[in-house]
């Protein structure tokens, strides 16, 4: 729709970076966002995601964030950047960067396929990622299902689009109204920990709520009371109501705090459900130990007899 988009260049099928001389073979386009287009490409036999944009500065700001997050030893928060370079398309120079290609599925599609049971677990994982980001002094900003991926191989939640990542205390660089604290009239757009946790809570509600209902209630004015109402009336969200409502009202000091509270609820619920099964398996365990000790005894006797 946006008319700025045509200015995002289409990558040629094959190209070579001007400075680092790495050559890429483009396989297909993965997606287009506000800041640029992401392609899947092969470079030296490795698959990479390559992002190119109309405004080089915007892209370089993203790289700046990605690199600063990677300075710590905490992998798995951001995709690793493998190359930053320029390429020339039709005589015009564009900046691009290449990063590791994460094979996975967008968060909302994953939940749709696997069921809403996964939502609390994925949120708990996501909170761990956010905590690391926050510890480095960054706020993710544009948190939404489209910017979160669940990897195929190990079911890990990964943040993928870093265009909204903002230094703590600054104005959030990029947001989506549906998940934006200010649009819900619950605060401003200054990047702080609570901003991300607010978006996360809205996301949890949206992922768990019936899509039709979410769509129809979108016409109502955006107020946190609407979200609280949905939480109260949803079977899958109700157990997590305290955590979610706290997040919506900015009551958590850190992502870790919210994470451990949600984790405690998941544990409690699992134990509650499985109480009976747990005692069954304990019985089996005792039985197993008995057999083992008999075998051990037999072995000892045999050994003694041989002497």
């Amino acid at each position, binding site marked *: 729709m*946006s008319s700025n988009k045509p200015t995002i260049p289409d990558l040629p099928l094959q190209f070579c970076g001007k400075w680092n001389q790495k050559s890429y073979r483009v396989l297909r386009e993965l997606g287009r966002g506000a800041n640029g287009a992401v392609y899947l490409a092969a470079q030296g036999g490795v698959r990479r995601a390559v992002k190119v944009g109309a405004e*080089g500065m915007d892209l370089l700001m993203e790289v*700046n964030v990605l690199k600063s997050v990677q300075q710590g030893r905490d992998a798995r928060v951001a995709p690793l950047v493998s190359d930053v370079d320029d390429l020339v398309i039709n005589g015009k120079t564009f900046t691009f960067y290449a990063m590791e290609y994460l094979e996975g599925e967008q968060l909302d599609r994953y939940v749709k396929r696997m069921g809403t049971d996964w939502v609390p677990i994925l949120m708990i994982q996501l909170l761990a990622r956010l905590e690391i980001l926050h510890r480095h002094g960054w706020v993710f900003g544009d948190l939404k299902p489209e910017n979160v991926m669940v990897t195929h191989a190990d079911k890990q939640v990964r943040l993928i689009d870093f265009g909204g990542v903002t230094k703590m205390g*600054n104005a*959030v660089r990029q*947001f*989506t109204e549906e998940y934006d604290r*200010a649009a819900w009239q619950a605060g*401003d757009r200054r990047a702080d920990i609570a901003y991300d946790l607010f978006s996360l809570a809205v996301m949890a509600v949206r992922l768990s709520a019936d899509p039709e209902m979410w769509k129809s209630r979108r016409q109502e004015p955006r107020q946190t009371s609407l979200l609280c109402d949905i939480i109260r009336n949803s079977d899958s969200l109700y157990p997590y109501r305290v955590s979610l409502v706290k997040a919506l009202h900015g009551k958590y000091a850190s992502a870790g705090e919210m994470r451990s509270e949600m984790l405690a609820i998941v544990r409690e619920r699992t134990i509650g459900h499985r109480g009976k099964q747990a005692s069954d398996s304990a019985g089996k365990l005792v039985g197993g130990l008995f057999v083992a000790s008999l075998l051990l005894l037999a072995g000892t006797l045999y050994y003694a007899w041989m002497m």
Partner: protein
Amino acid sequence: MKEATLRQILVVTDGCSNAGISPVAAATLAREQGITVNVIGVIEKGDMGEQGEKEIREIANAGGGLYDIVYPQQLAQTVQMLTRKAMTRTIHHVVNKELKEILGDSAIDVLSPEKRVQVAGMVDELGERSRLDVVMLVDTSGSMKSKLSAVQQAIHDFSISLRSRSGQSRMAVCSFPGKQKHLDVRIPWTDQVEQAHQLTSGLTMSGITPTGPAIVEAIALFEHVQLPASLSERFRNEQEEDDGSLRDHVF
């Protein structure tokens, strides 16, 4: 580098201008005086029309700014995004100019991408801290009527965005065509907009869209610009701001 003031005019319109000086010429004039002109086209369905889109693009290009064409519900988000990107761009140009003085003509081209990543971090930080003055110029000609509630929402929302910045920010809101002149100041320079403000009250609905003249008059709201006496009387007294000293408009 001294603290800078970034100045922008943001035009919100839904069609072609049809009165007075060409808006492209007006945007050129604004840019000449250190003011960037961004344009947002608001459409209800379908397309803007080739003519309308062309004009919007040309205004933004001449004004050194950016443009986008969106539906009313995307307006709030677009306002924030365009403003931030245009700021980045302006600062980038200035930084580039400084680099050229140090490094010679090819400037940024001789910097490796890794070095430019560091420049980008600096540009980002400068954008956050610099002063920002934005005049929102809202087309209130007949066809815009149904979109004005979205515009109102966007104005309030933009005020939240501005408040969230570290640097000082101010905004003013004008509508065009005005009652007597080409433009009416609806909200004078402020750093906070009350949601209650009604943009729709007391509007003159007419078929005239004097985008060009409105841009020229909006330039007068920035007090760093030397004005002919007639315009300066009209606009200066609307400001309670008194730090009469001209702010430097380049770094």
